[in-house]
């Protein structure tokens, strides 16, 4: 890498010698966009919790695929009585089981957590578990 980054204009004269170029495979990706690692260190600066489901939708059941369904829906699970700790979720995401749940129930809750989105309670906490660490 250059010691000093330069503006593109100054940086790239047109090639004097023809350089080989490959467009590559249609399915491959050639651009990585850096996303904010907002919560990346939050796991280390803070302990956080994830409610299943979030309070705005308390009372709904969690289906096997993690979607929320009306309470009483067959084969779906009632929400967890207590929020899960980040560490427990981390273990579950790596194949473990959430505390106080059956295997299927844990799978459903984990699926719910994976579907969390910005603005939903638990999202920031989940995001902090997702960031590549290293």
């Amino acid at each position, binding site marked *: *890498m250059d010691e000093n980054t330069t*503006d593109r204009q100054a940086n790239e004269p047109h090639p004097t010698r023809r*350089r080989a170029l490959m467009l590559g495979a249609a399915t491959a990706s050639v651009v990585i*966009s850096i996303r904010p690692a907002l919560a990346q260190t939050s796991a280390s600066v803070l302990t956080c919790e994830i409610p299943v489901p979030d309070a705005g939708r308390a009372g709904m059941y969690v289906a096997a695929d993690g979607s929320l369904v009306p309470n009483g829906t067959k084969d779906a699970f009632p929400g967890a009585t207590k929020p899960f700790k980040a560490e427990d979720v981390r273990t579950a995401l790596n194949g473990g089981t959430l505390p106080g749940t059956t295997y299927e129930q844990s799978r459903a809750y984990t699926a719910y957590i994976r579907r969390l989105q910005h603005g939903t309670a638990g999202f920031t906490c989940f995001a902090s578990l997702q960031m590549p660490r290293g």
Partner: protein
Amino acid sequence: MATLYRAASPDSLIVAPVDLLTAIYHRASGQTHLMASPAPEILDALAEAPLDAAALLAKLRADYDLVDADPAVLAARLDELVETGLVERR
């Protein structure tokens, strides 16, 4: 009329070749992109003026020894750049 592809103006980019990859900071979006060939070359080819896909392919052929001049693959590359906002369809 064929779709034109317009790249972010060169003075809105800071380009830092890292190794095989190139880091690009886009001033307009505040985003950093790390890209492999041929993405930097495509941005470069579009720097002077917007081109449609066929003209872009021709320009890349003229400037480089293009190993696989496949329009479908070029379209995929352009889609990716459009997604980042570095290239705009017009």
